[in-house]
């Protein structure tokens, strides 16, 4: 890219030229579209009570967990798929997929990372997520200069967690970081207390489906007063064909604790659509803080809209304690269909919720995403910054709710949603709901829709940039407020993703 980019990047947390070059080297079409050739263990195709039992058995779960899943399954079987989103896709045949796929080598759980199938380790290494307890994530060399930054990783491959790094070091601080199947066995009391307490089984069609068939995902517990000594992350990889991924993540931040959690995801290029229905629950007690960042880069399908992931995700944070704070940051560039509304229940007095989002839809992608800020406690604050970019024939919708309950006095909300259109065949839509039930709270909502500014483009072009580069730069500027909210590793990746996702959108 150009000097302009460098200048802009240098102001951010010491990202240097080398980092930028690394990112540039990443540029290309969807670069995670390859497949790992590995022997898999599948559950029979389709969904039934037997499949639910089988998934539960594969995870060696106790009876109560199986019962929980079965009650969700029975409920789901009675439910109807929601149709209110501005998304158009052929009817999903829920019986024509696999609900469990695990590498054969994982049949006997490896005791440590050294025992994990080298093929799996190689897969993550290729994705830039080496499962070694090293200082930093690969691909972000610049991060070294930021000091001793460590990131613990839980790697989920189709339906199973392959391994979790730094568990011992985290345990010293009292932090539990493991796969959800592990915690069900080892800390059932925590699971019973918190699982489904933020997103109940009955919440919505996809969350109920997830409650029945969830396979792996991550569990985090940060004890009282602990600032998690490193960033935690989960990397989700869908590899097997015709297989859905249904991970479940549960993070509990006890009183006065802090954690920053990163989430990444990719999948191979395939002509068929694959289903991904995840649930993420965050629980925040008094004064706790969670920063949850996502770079969603599932395979988006090709230029003609063939293939790609159907991404139906329910994410919700419950700020139970006073003065707790949650921040959702998401960069949504992948998936053929995105249906996702990370939300905050601001129950505790003085609690805060923030939502920063960049959603890019190119070619035939469709995204319907946004947030809900439900203000229940006094003096609660929320902030929404959403940037939607549509290109090609894509449709991008922001859908959000801000609700001030009668008791949520002296609360504040500020919402800014901006949409950018590149080309005249795409669409950008905004569907906000604003509900104010007391008068001491203040709600402000602003939204704009515009095209890429001609003057800015002309300026970049006059400096010798080609049109695609210029558009990417202008779009990066448009997204700046959100990019800056991301942890550094993600900011760099996200910036390059913005450019990659828009490839082919000009001319």
């Amino acid at each position: 890219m150009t000097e302009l980019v460098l200048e802009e990047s240098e102001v951010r947390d010491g990202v240097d030229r080398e980092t930028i070059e690394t990112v540039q080297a990443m540029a290309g079409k969807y670069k995670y579209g390859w497949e790992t050739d590995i022997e898999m263990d599948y559950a029979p195709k389709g969904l039934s009570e037997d499949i639910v039992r089988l998934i539960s058995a594969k995870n060696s779960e106790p009876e109560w967990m199986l019962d929980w899943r079965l009650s969700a399954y029975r409920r789901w079987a009675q439910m109807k798929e929601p149709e209110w989103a501005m998304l158009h896709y052929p009817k999903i045949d829920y019986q024509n997929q696999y609900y469990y796929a695990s590498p054969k080598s994982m049949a006997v759980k490896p005791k440590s990372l050294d025992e994990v199938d080298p093929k799996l380790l190689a897969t993550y290494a290729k994705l830039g997520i080496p499962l070694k307890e090293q200082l930093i994530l690969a691909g972000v060399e610049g991060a070294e200069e930021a000091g001793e930054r460590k990131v613990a990783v839980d790697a989920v491959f189709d339906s199973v967690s392959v391994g979790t790094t730094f568990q011992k070091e985290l345990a010293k601080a009292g932090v539990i970081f493991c796969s959800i199947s592990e915690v069900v066995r080892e800390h059932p009391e925590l699971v019973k207390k918190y699982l489904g307490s933020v997103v109940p089984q009955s919440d919505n069609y996809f969350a109920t489906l997830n409650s029945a068939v969830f396979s792996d995902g991550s569990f985090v517990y940060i004890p009282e007063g602990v600032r998690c000594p490193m960033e935690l992350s989960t990397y989700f990889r869908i590899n097997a064909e015709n297989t859905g991924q249904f991970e479940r993540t549960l993070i509990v931040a006890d009183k006065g604790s802090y954690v920053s959690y990163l989430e990444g995801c990719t999948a191979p290029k395939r002509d068929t659509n694959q289903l991904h229905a995840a649930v993420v629950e965050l629980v925040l007690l008094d004064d706790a803080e969670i920063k949850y960042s996502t770079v969603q880069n599932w395979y988006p399908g090709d230029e003609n809209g063939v293939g790609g992931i159907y991404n139906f995700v329910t994410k919700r944070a419950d700020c139970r304690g006073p003065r707790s704070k949650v921040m959702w940051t998401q960069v949504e560039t992948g998936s053929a269909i995105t249906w996702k509304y990370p939300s905050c229940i601001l129950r505790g007095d003085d609690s805060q919720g923030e939502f920063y989002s960049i959603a890019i839809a190119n070619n035939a992608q469709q995204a319907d995403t946004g947030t809900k800020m439900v203000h229940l406690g006094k003096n609660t604050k929320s902030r929404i910054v959403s940037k939607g970019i549509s290109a090609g024939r894509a449709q991008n919708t922001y859908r959000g709710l801000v609700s001030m309950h009668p008791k949520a006095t002296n609360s504040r909300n500020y919402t800014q949603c901006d949409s950018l259109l590149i080309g005249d065949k795409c669409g950008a839509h905004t569907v906000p709901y604003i509900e104010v039930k007391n008068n001491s709270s203040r709600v402000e909502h602003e939204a704009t829709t515009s095209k890429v500014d001609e003057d800015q483009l002309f300026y970049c072009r006059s400096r010798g940039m080609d049109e695609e580069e210029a558009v990417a730069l202008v779009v990066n500027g448009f997204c700046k407020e959100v990019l800056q909210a991301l942890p550094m590793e993600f900011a760099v990746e996200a910036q390059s993703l913005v450019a990659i996702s828009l490839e082919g959108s000009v001319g």
Partner: protein
Amino acid sequence: MLLDVAKRDALAARIANLSIPTGGGWLGAARAEALARLLAMGLPGKRDEYWRYTDPSSLTTAVPPKTPLFATDNELMPFSGLDRLKLVFIDGVFDAVQSDDLALAGVEIERLGIAGRSDIHWAQSLYGVLEARGQMPVERPLSALNSAFATDGVLVRVKGNAERPISLIYHSNSENSDAILHHCVSVEEGAEITILENGPAGARFNKVIEVDLAKGARFHHISAQGRNHQCRAVTHIFARLAEGALFKSFTLTANSLLTRNEAVIELLGDDAMAHVAGAALGDRNFHHDDTVFVTHAGQRCESRQVFKNVLKNGAVGVFQGKILVKNGAQKTDGYQISQSLLLDGDSQFFAKPELEIYADDVKCSHGSTSGAIDETALFYLRSRGVPTQMAQGLLVLAFLAEAISEIDDNSISDLIRAQLEGWLV
């Protein structure tokens, strides 16, 4: 799609007391088509997304809830000093005695019931036609019910510049009238008219106005909905704009139990302009809903939606506004603002300002705010010796100013402002 049994029964009960006037003619055919639309849709229910914030049940019962009569001397008479052509309707029926002659230079005015008996009429291409177009993408069954069962209303064809505004004056002398009025206004190329409306039309009122604007036509609409605390109203205004046409509508709602005003506007020609504005003042048992749908199909068109609510003692304000920019409607300029001033902790405001955009070279924005009166401004006025109540009134007036300034005719906006000042300060 077939209606479920409950919806079918509710609809049957609602229309049991209504009858389609006999007499055939072009109107008979239009009514039959509207009835078919209604039968396919059913009545709106509480669970319909489009009625998320307003419960339609009192609008859809077989008979209107009993409504105590309201002393007329308390009524809102904002246009009394104005030179205008008066057409009076009492509980939904035209009153020839109190009305002026249907004669206005440059304008043809006819009563719906009489004009509907002929075989051919210009209004054939308008009556129920815009209403039918307005059923997509969102159903508005109460407007189809109106087209099917309206017995009165006026058909106005404007050929030049109307010399005076037409003033539609509504009175209600009945505790249980179910008034249904349907007006059509066609403004021909380059012509201009102002339509004024005021007063409570019945215990329950269902009104549709269809407005067709030819090239360069100009239409102004100012409605003051009365101060009756007990009545209910659902109104629809459907408009279609050709090249360079101008549409302006302003609604003042001072009080009523329930009001739902829908405006459905299509900018079909290039360079057309549509402004819809409203000011609502609610006290106690007051539920006011402005629902607006503007479609941009032509290029370089401008639309504005400006709605202000002042609410106290548990009053509820609703704004559902949408701008749809179709593919090809380049250079669209769309603006939407909805604001509410909550004077106490019991009042509520709900807003759903939507944008749906399929063209890239557009400028569209919306804003929505809700909050209490600005304490600093109040303090300033008090420190200058302005009594609290008057200071509050002044701030409320200032808050409403943006909506009132949407009225082009200064003599009319001054009347509205003066009326409000009288109440507030």
